[in-house]
């Protein structure tokens, strides 16, 4: 046991004394949450809105007031004619426009159809359609509350955005971000620190010692398990504090699932290092083999549902896909193990298979 304690202490020294890596481990998760939370958002804010109102009347003023009150739109121009719009859109001064017909209130009062045009800049298709649907929602809101005497029967479709009613994208990012940070710390760091020992020849010295392979592996990865766990807690805490991301389910369930996912990532790191002999190759292996799939095929950034089936099929073997699913469900839906036993089982099986495979790869390497 004292041999293992010595190994653990040694690994802690490695982590603490490698300043650059230490900074990466500490700063990266914090920074990632900020970057992903603020910069890469799918919800739209401060939409620059141009309004064309040839003859302002009570109704157009009321609708304009609602747009103002929505908090999403920002009036950048109020013009009487439609012609200047072209220039506003081209310059990017306006992202959306609201065009009223002349005599809007009068036609409405007489029960005639009143034209209202919503224009959105669809250079970025997502943003465009979000702007359009926001605008539609505002108008529907007005129609609903307007006195029924005004005009004919209105069909008001009701849309509810469940689980993320305000469509806060940071809610969606945080679970994926946890997977990403864990992959970096567990897979990448483990792969690098093991291949470093290969390069310096110290691994050989450990292998010819009476240490058992499992002791070497535990001594190597346990500190990273602790670091990974700490950063999960850190990310959850920061996400709650800065973005008020809800945690509707059980924190302990989330943390346990996190540990299983860390084990999976650690095993991948060991596997990668067993197949490579230089830190550089190990780093590339970890980037391509674990971080890229975690970014692209976990549903973290790009929804899996809209991917062609071959990619969806590949995503099944990406551990992060299952962890992201679990983390989202626990955090946003607040569901428990009763609903999540399937992805949990997948993660457990992956952890078991990969741990076995990586321990064996470690053994086999000795027989080369």
């Amino acid at each position: 046991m004292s041999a293992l304690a010595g190994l653990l202490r040694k690994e802690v020294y490695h982590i603490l004394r490698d300043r650059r890596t230490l900074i990466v481990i500490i700063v990266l998760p914090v920074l990632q949450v900020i970057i992903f939370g603020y910069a890469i958002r799918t919800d739209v804010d401060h939409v620059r809105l141009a309004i064309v109102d040839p003859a302002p009347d009570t109704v157009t003023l009321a609708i304009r007031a609602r747009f103002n009150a929505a908090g999403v739109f920002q009036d950048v121009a109020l013009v009487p004619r439609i012609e200047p719009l072209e220039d506003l859109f081209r310059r990017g001064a306006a992202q959306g426009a609201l065009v009223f017909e002349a005599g809007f209130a009068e036609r409405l009062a007489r029960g005639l159809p009143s034209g209202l045009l919503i224009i959105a800049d669809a250079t970025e298709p997502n943003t465009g359609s979000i702007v359009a649907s926001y605008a539609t929602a505002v108008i529907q809101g007005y129609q609903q509350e307007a006195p029924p005497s005004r005009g004919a029967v209105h069909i008001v479709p009701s849309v509810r955005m469940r689980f993320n009613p305000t469509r806060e994208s940071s809610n969606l990012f945080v679970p994926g971000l946890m997977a990403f940070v864990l992959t970096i710390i567990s897979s990448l760091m483990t792969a690098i620190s093991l291949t470093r020992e290969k390069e310096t020849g110290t691994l050989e010295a450990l292998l010819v010692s009476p240490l058992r392979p499992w002791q070497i592996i535990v001594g190597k990865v346990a500190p990273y398990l602790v670091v990974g766990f700490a950063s999960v807690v850190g990310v959850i805490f920061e996400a709650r504090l800065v973005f008020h991301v809800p945690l509707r389910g059980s924190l302990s369930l989330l943390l346990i699932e996190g540990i299983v996912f860390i084990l999976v990532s650690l095993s991948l790191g060991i596997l990668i290092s067993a197949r490579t002999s230089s830190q550089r190759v190990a780093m590339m292996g970890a980037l391509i083999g674990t971080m890229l799939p975690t970014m692209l095929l976990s549903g973290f950034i790009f929804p899996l549902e809209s991917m062609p089936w071959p990619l969806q099929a590949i995503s099944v073997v990406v551990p992060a896909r299952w962890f992201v699913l679990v983390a989202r469900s626990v955090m946003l839906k607040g569901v428990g193990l009763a609903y999540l036993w399937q992805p949990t089982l997948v993660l457990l099986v992956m952890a078991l298979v990969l741990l076995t495979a990586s321990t064996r790869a470690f053994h086999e390497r000795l027989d080369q």
Partner: protein
Amino acid sequence: MTGDLAIDVQDLTRRFGAFTAVGGITFNVRVGEVFGFLGANGAGKTTAIRMLTGLLAPSSGRATVAGHDVARDAERVKRDIGYMSQKFSLYEDLTVRENITLYGGIYDLRDRDIRDRSARMLANLELEHAADQFVRAIPLGWRQKLAFSVALLHQPRVVFLDEPTSGVDPITRRQFWELIYDAAAAGTTVLVTTHYMDEAEYCDRISIMVDGRIGAMGTPAELKRDFRVSSIDDLFVQLARPSGSSQEIRRSGGQTLQETRRSGDLS
């Protein structure tokens, strides 16, 4: 038979698929002997050492190290041997003392023993002033001597040195060999590989591996006399050359040049 033999190897063989890296070598090393294990790159030295240190299972044949069978008793072999490679196996981001403590713990030494032995070791090496310096901060020659001493910390009966002096200056190499002699005088058996033929002459006995077999074995003086060469260097070149005229090579033949190259990758 193993009474005064530290290493006893009988017909030891290791195959990787169809390729034979070590093809039935037989030799022994007496207790307290300094045995030079020579051979060109890819001749099978490293594979042989990996089997003797319990890292690699033999395909056939038998070897005992410090009285333990390497195939059946690898764990006990590991307790009784020390090992130092050309990469000198110390952690550069740990201090001298931390390295000593780490390896002492790995070999299950008691704290008091670790303290006493490291004090003696640092005094011998005149490294007391550097005990709390990082290993990367001390000169290469000192690091190598330190690595050797750390490999002896648990007082192994046999110590394997894999090209321990590569890349150091002649003076440090000389000092290093003094440490080897000290260890041998204290009863530790030393098996050392080297590419420096002047070092081969320092050994009590040497063997030269060629294509997975032992091409020549004996004391340096015997070998020079039997092969009618003036130095081990000449003998080595004569034996190790693939198209050499030596009878030993003819007997070990059957391997193509390509296989020899492949063995270079493996070992």
